[in-house]
């Protein structure tokens, strides 16, 4: 009684439905399109929105990269990759440049993306107004009427309380000057990468059953008051202790013996790339 599994897990009807939703999302940048959202073999909240997008889009020629909080080898990234590969047999890669499809949780890769690539982001809470309004019925109307005072008010309150905006990741953005969108919990550092990105960015929220998109070359601006400009995370004068990069998002690590903090690229494949090219230069230099 063993069932034959379909290519990319889903039956074709399900895939078509997700693709139709995706097309609508691309046509209305930043608008959260509801979809039925199938239950997946990985848990709700573990990237099922992104996974459904990936599985509905992937073809045999695709090359897939999956990252979780910057790392290709994070257990959940591995688990997702495994599922996609088992049901499709596609090629996997850690190299951002080689991938045609990149599924990511909470990071946009450091290497700029191209027109040939699609970035799929996993979204836990797609509604940027949820903190001011619990009801889905109401937030839907607020989007329709372009009423975003609530999102601004959240930032205003932070400034009143803390003297600056204190958003962590998931700082809200305006897409194409119309919809306010949760960029998924990417750090503020990554928000500017969405602006006029060459790649198509798709965002999938499986549990909340929404798909939304930022098409290539679309304006994406982070919400900021005129006298309190948007700022990204800073790492002072720190650099990656491995590759020396200082213009990337860094992980803070603690040296167990000294108790001191040291820093390392969060984007692991970017870091390894840099190390390899540095070594290449050294070798050539040595031989020269």
């Amino acid at each position, binding site marked *: *009684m063993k*069932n034959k*599994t379909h290519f990319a*897990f*889903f*039956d074709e*009807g399900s895939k078509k*439905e997700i693709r139709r939703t995706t097309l609508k999302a691309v046509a209305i940048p930043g608008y959260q399109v*509801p*979809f*039925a*959202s*199938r*239950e*997946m*073999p990985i*848990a*709700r*909240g*573990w990237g*099922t929105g992104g996974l459904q997008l990936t599985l509905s889009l992937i073809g045999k020629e695709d090359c897939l990269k999956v990252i*979780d*909080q*910057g790392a*290709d*080898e*994070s257990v959940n*990234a*591995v688990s997702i990759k*495994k599922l996609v590969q088992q049901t499709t047999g596609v090629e996997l890669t*850690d190299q951002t440049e080689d991938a045609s499809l990149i599924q990511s949780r*909470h990071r946009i890769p450091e290497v700029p993306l191209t027109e040939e690539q699609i970035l799929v982001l996993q979204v*836990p809470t797609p509604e940027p107004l949820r903190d001011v309004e619990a*009801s*889905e*019925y109401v937030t839907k109307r607020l989007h329709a009427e372009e009423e975003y005072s609530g999102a601004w008010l959240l930032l205003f309150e932070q400034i009143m309380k*803390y*003297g*600056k*905006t204190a*958003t*962590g*990741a998931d700082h809200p953005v305006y897409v194409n000057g119309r919809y306010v969108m949760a960029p998924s*919990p*990417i*750090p*503020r550092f990554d928000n500017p990468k969405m602006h006029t990105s060459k790649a198509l960015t798709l965002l999938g929220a499986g*549990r909340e*059953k929404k798909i939304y998109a930022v098409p290539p070359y679309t304006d994406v601006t982070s919400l900021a008051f005129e006298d309190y400009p948007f700022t990204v*995370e*800073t790492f002072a004068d720190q650099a990656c202790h491995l590759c020396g990069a200082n213009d990337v*998002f860094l*992980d803070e690590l603690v040296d167990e013996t000294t108790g001191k903090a040291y820093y390392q690229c*969060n984007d*692991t*494949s970017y870091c*390894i790339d840099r*190390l*390899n090219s540095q*070594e290449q230069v050294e070798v050539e230099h040595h031989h020269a």
Partner: protein
Amino acid sequence: MGYVAVKGGTKAIEASIERLTYDRLQESEVIEVKTIMATMRALVDQVMSESSLYSPFLAALAIKQAEGSMEEAVFIMRAHRSTLPRLHYSNIVESESMLVERRISASFKDIPGGQILGSTTDYTHRLLDFSLASETKLENDQWMKNYVDKLEQAVSPQDEVLFFPKVVDYLRQEGLFGGHELDDTPPTDITKENLSFPASRSARLQTLTRGQTGAVTALGYASLRGYGQVHPTVGEVRVGMLPIYVGHPNEPEQTEEDSYYIGEIKVSEVESFVPVSVKNEQNEAELDFEIGYGVCYGQNETKAIAMSILDQCLEHPEASFPTHDEEFVLLHIDSVEATGFISHLKLPHYVTFQSKLNSVREVKRKGESNEE
């Protein structure tokens, strides 16, 4: 030479899965799927109900694979459900056609057709039965033989199948309940469409019937206890088999003869009577009854009753209790969604936490420089 990514994640997962298998096999006992089907009916029923996939075999297999974890078994079933193309909708099922195994009313002692206690744990004493620790197949077979003999002497077979009228129909004839016109609007299919608000009653009932048993029971209980305005009397609980038919896929004109019998499902069905205050023609307040409806796969009467309470709650959104708020109830009772999102907190949040940390530090730094 060159640097390569440490394959830590891949190795860790492989080792973890091996360990999981080891934990399942280490006592070298094998439980057969058919054993689970035969002896854990309640568990199988609950898994089928929460996963909204009626297949005792698959449910038992999922239970075996999940080593008895409810949330895990439901999860596996739901994921499997996503791989199945959905080709047909069944014909409308009239629950009068149920082959009743059990049927009770808390509202009337004498209901037309009579009460049938059937098989229930309700009146067992919940004492641990230590004899079960050493039961033998031989003893059990003997018990079975005696029971069947007893039945054969006491009961004579009838030629006709007995169907039972619904208690509520009897009350309708009395004029205590208003009648409703048949409404054959095709129901919303919440597995193909996103639940949108305000939700149709069909969408609400579907969400409730696949809700996590514990969650549905807890919210129904909350309403009963005071965080809600529904206190029902159970009009009828019935458990039994319902025959399922599908129409001919290619015949535009459907007659009953064109339908195909595809099997039967066991369900628990509840109709609760809920007193409500309505205005009469003189605009005076008057008491009337409304019906709360609950139904779920298998024998799970508590869930079906709790569902009937919540159905009525959601019919009256004007009451200011969370149990009457459809977004509150419907968006939080699904097993796969709730357990998934709670468990996702185990995933690394390094980047998000680093980002928040950065903000907190900035705020603190600013605070310090202000003090200087």
